[in-house]
């Protein structure tokens, strides 16, 4: 009953009678893009608001009278206007702010956009396109690899862009692009992410304890937003690297804007040349396309249509009879309508469709092998923002998603696994952003999920509290309950052709409780410091069961997974960041512990998963000197856990021959460690003009001092006598050059 009291409480929050309201949208005058988190307030009062994701703001409960309205946003001229409001007036005031950004300061401006969210919500990180492009990278700028440089986020290897956030694997992180879930965010087996840096506007990451507006995953949420497109002038940007070319075009269109971006590898001729001289070189390409159209339908209505299409294709033909093909890709389209119902009620409604297909086929000596996984979902989503009064900002919404899954495994013309499900998930949530005191804000939320396969309703309370101790110094705490209904089956060493399987009635969905407490301190405009401690308790975990008999007619989730797992992740993260000046960057350190336990794994004993890291230190810095920019990353982390061999034993291969075969007996799971991981990346970039165009060339060096970090250990027996334990190493030094351009 207590659970429902929260909803009841939300419905009872009063609105102010006999008071005026002012609301509207805040935009960038140069591009027309909506500005998020602009500070709107009335001078001489405690009344104010922040613009939301769509640039909308509303101030309610204003006594009649004359006021000076101020709209400020870092990097823009402050807007001031004198207003006269009647006692029950509703005034619409849209504000277009004039940018004052100097070249090179974009990072500062953008980094500050989410200042209020950062101060209010523990575990929240915002990374902007400008910051992203400054970081040294391998090959080309990559969102997910850049995120791996933040505290609490790790990579499994040099070739993986998978995110391991606060002890959770990639399967526990939800990745959204313009609010559409993407099921496989990787190209090139995880080497690159699918996010074209030219198309990205910004990204928000909730490392844990995420608010009620999100749901469906046990760990983190990465919410990436693509650019809307410039409403005022035609332009674009792009880049050429050693492996791919990318470009983005944006400009005004009718009563709004458009943006189209594309990226494609051009490795085929190189691979074909190598293949003509060396056997077993595959053919490979990937491409992705992003498109967005933004239209103002009326004074209060806006329509956004967006889409993403991407594909990876690897083909290896070693002989007439042997071929191997892996193909995967996401397609997603969405239409979003935003509407201002009243000066205090803002809504957005979305319909989206997403399709993920992964197909691995092989033919060896006439024997065909096929793995095929597809997920299609159609979703309807709605969110309402209601500014009730000066203390309460309510948010509520729903999401209904209908899925169609198929996971087929066929061997030698025999369908060995045929798992098809059509589940649906309906979620509703309500959230109150309550300014309890001038120095204390509380975000209280509740999310309820109905999953058709289980026919139960899972309630998920969410809470975050932020208390200002002094100017710039805040204490934060948060927590919540989370469920996950879809399970990713992947290899952690690389991530191509991942498979998603829904949990049916035979397996309980994973669940987690998150607890976060921390403090943030902004001692000066250029500096941010934060310290956060987290604890996550996980239950009903599953891992794929690799010991199933081949050819089983598995049609239920319990046939595919080892179930009943539990675990925890805990740690402390320290983060120091400098966001302005010639030298920018951060130092992040994480001290963490992660453990898992399954009744059928490791003889039921607790063990650290591979991505358990005791220490993880990252220093990332950029130094700007005129047209030159120098960047560097230094990373140091505890070595990954691995399972060592503890003994050898012999058994006969078969009774017929009596030949004895050697086996290694493993010790307890992950009881040894690889050597500590460390590397340094360097980059140099120079801006210049050519043919009246802004250009930038760059040289990036991944693993600058060529330290071959350890990846995994493999044991081999030579001549049936001597055992060798070979450490397979990760990437050596990798220099890359490229060119970026604007037009």
């Amino acid at each position: 009953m207590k659970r429902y009291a929260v909803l009841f409480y939300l419905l009872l929050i009063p609105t102010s009678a006999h008071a005026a309201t002012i609301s509207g949208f805040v935009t960038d005058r140069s591009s027309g893009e909506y500005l998020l988190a602009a500070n709107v307030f009335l001078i001489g009062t405690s009344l104010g608001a922040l613009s939301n994701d769509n640039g909308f703001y509303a101030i309610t409960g204003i006594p009649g009278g004359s006021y000076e309205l101020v709209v400020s946003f870092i990097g823009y001229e402050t807007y001031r206007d004198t207003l006269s409001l009647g006692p029950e007036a509703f005034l619409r005031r849209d504000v277009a702010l004039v940018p004052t950004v100097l070249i090179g300061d974009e990072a500062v401006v953008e980094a500050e956009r989410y200042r209020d969210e950062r101060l209010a919500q523990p575990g929240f990180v915002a990374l902007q396109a400008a910051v992203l492009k400054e970081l040294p990278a391998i090959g080309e700028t990559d969102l997910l690899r850049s995120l791996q440089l933040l505290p609490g986020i790790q990579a499994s290897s040099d070739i993986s862009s998978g995110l391991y956030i606060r002890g959770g694997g990639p399967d526990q992180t939800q990745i959204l692009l313009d609010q559409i879930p993407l099921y496989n965010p990787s190209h090139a087996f995880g080497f690159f992410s699918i996010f074209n840096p030219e198309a990205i506007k910004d990204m928000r990451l909730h490392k844990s304890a995420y608010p009620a507006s999100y749901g469906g995953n046990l760990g983190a949420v990465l919410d990436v937003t693509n650019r809307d497109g410039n409403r005022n002038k035609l332009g674009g940007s792009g880049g050429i690297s050693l492996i791919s070319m990318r470009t983005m075009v944006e400009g005004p269109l009718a009563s709004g804007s458009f943006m189209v971006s594309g990226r494609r590898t051009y490795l085929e001729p190189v691979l074909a040349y190598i293949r003509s001289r060396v056997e077993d070189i595959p053919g490979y390409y990937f491409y992705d396309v992003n498109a967005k159209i933004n239209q103002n339908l009326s004074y209060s209505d806006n329509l956004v249509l967006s889409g993403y299409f991407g594909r990876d294709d690897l083909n290896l033909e070693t002989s007439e009879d042997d071929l191997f093909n892996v193909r995967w890709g996401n397609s997603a389209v969405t239409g979003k309508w935003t509407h201002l119902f009243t000066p205090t009620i803002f809504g957005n409604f979305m319909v989206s469709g997403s399709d993920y297909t992964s197909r691995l086929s092989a033919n060896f000596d006439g024997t065909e092998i096929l793995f095929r996984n597809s997920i299609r979902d159609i979703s309807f989503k709605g969110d309402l923002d209601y500014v009730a009064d000066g203390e309460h900002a309510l948010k509520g919404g729903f999401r209904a998603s209908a899925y169609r899954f198929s996971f087929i495994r066929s061997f030698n013309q025999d369908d060995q696994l045929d798992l098809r499900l059509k589940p649906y998930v309906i979620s509703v949530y309500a959230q109150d952003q309550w300014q309890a005191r001038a120095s204390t804000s509380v975000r209280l939320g509740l999310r309820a999920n109905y999953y058709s396969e289980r026919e139960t309703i899972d309630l998920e309370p969410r809470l975050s509290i932020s208390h200002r101790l002094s100017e710039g110094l805040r204490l934060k705490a948060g927590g919540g309950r989370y469920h996950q209904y879809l399970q990713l089956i992947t290899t952690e060493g690389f991530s191509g052709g991942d498979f998603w399987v829904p949990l049916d009635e035979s397996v309980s969905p994973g669940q987690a409780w998150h607890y976060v407490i921390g403090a943030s301190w902004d001692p000066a405009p250029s500096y941010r410091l934060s310290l956060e401690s987290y604890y996550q308790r996980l239950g009903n975990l599953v891992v794929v069961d690799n010991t199933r008999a081949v050819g089983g007619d598995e049609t239920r989730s319990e046939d595919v997974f080892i179930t009943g797992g539990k675990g925890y992740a805990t740690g402390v993260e320290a983060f120091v960041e400098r966001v302005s000046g010639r030298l920018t960057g951060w130092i992040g350190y994480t001290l963490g512990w992660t453990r898992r336990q399954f009744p059928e794994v490791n003889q039921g004993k607790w063990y650290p998963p591979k991505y358990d890291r005791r220490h993880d230190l990252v220093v990332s810095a950029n130094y700007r000197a005129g047209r030159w920019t120098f960047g560097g990353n230094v990373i140091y982390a505890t070595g990954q856990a691995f399972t060592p061999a503890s003994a050898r034993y012999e058994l006969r291969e078969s009774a017929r021959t009596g030949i004895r075969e050697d086996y290694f007996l493993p010790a307890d799971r992950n009881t040894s460690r690889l050597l500590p991981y460390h590397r340094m990346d360097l980059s140099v970039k120079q801006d210049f003009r050519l043919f009246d165009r802004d250009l930038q060339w760059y040289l990036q060096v991944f693993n600058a001092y060529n330290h071959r970090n350890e990846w995994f250990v493999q044991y081999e027996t030579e001549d049936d006598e001597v055992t060798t334990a070979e450490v397979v190493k990760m990437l050596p030094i990798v220099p890359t050059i490229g060119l970026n351009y604007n037009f």
Partner: protein
Amino acid sequence: MYKTARLPHWITPVLTAVLLAGVAAHPGCSAERDPATLFGPAERETIVVDAVLYVDHVLPEIIITRTRTADAEATGDATSVNDAEVTVIQGLAEYTYASVGHLGRYLPPAGAPRVRPNTEYRLRVRALGEEVRGVTNTPAPLVIDEIAVLEEPSMEVIRRLDPDSAAGNRIPYQEGLIEVRFDPLDVEAYQVIVLEPDSEDGGSPPLEARDGRLLLPWFAIGSSGEHEVVVYALDRNLFDFLRSVQASGQNAFGFGSLAGDTFERPVFNLDGGIGVFGSASLDSFGFFVIPES
């Protein structure tokens, strides 16, 4: 919004330089891996049992050895346990095995009976001051009823092979699919081993085949000439060992794991030791593979 106090302007570059230098100079940069650290705590002297009972065959030879350290060299007979007390028990009958004296080989007593189907057998091994115990329940007899050659992709039967004689069973390489049909037994899985001339035995992973049908993959055929296909119906112990030892390949890239992270202790179903004490029933057929023209 902010206090006006600022940190000293030199603090960031100095702090960064110190950290960069410190991390880059960390001893780990030049550390060489001591090979011994790649092995876990040694599990030596654990008794290893190698005993598989085949239905309708006489009690088999049993091998008793012990584990050695993972990095130790194999030296022939060094791991053999030749002085064990090995007993197979069925009902009230106890069959005491005799040591051959080398390679850990133990033979059943003279006149030992054939292994019965659907029967519980127990193993007791006393050696090295330890006692190992295991139990197996033998499967019912396996009888191959039919061998059909199917056309791809229609999967229509285009001809049938003789289960009892290889002489007339001649199949061109990769022409159709060979399907083995039998009455399914109450077992967890089956294993197929293709015996080829001049090559080692290669066993399949455990195959479920609840409908009593198994398709033979052509990649199991490496050469032309006479082949024998043996189908085993596996008891629980043999099934558990085979499925878990194959999944735990120490170098495997299994799904749901990092490279090498499927290295997991197999399921032995033995008390006091490791290895296999299992049983199986089997049937076989032969055929000739005609080379591609």
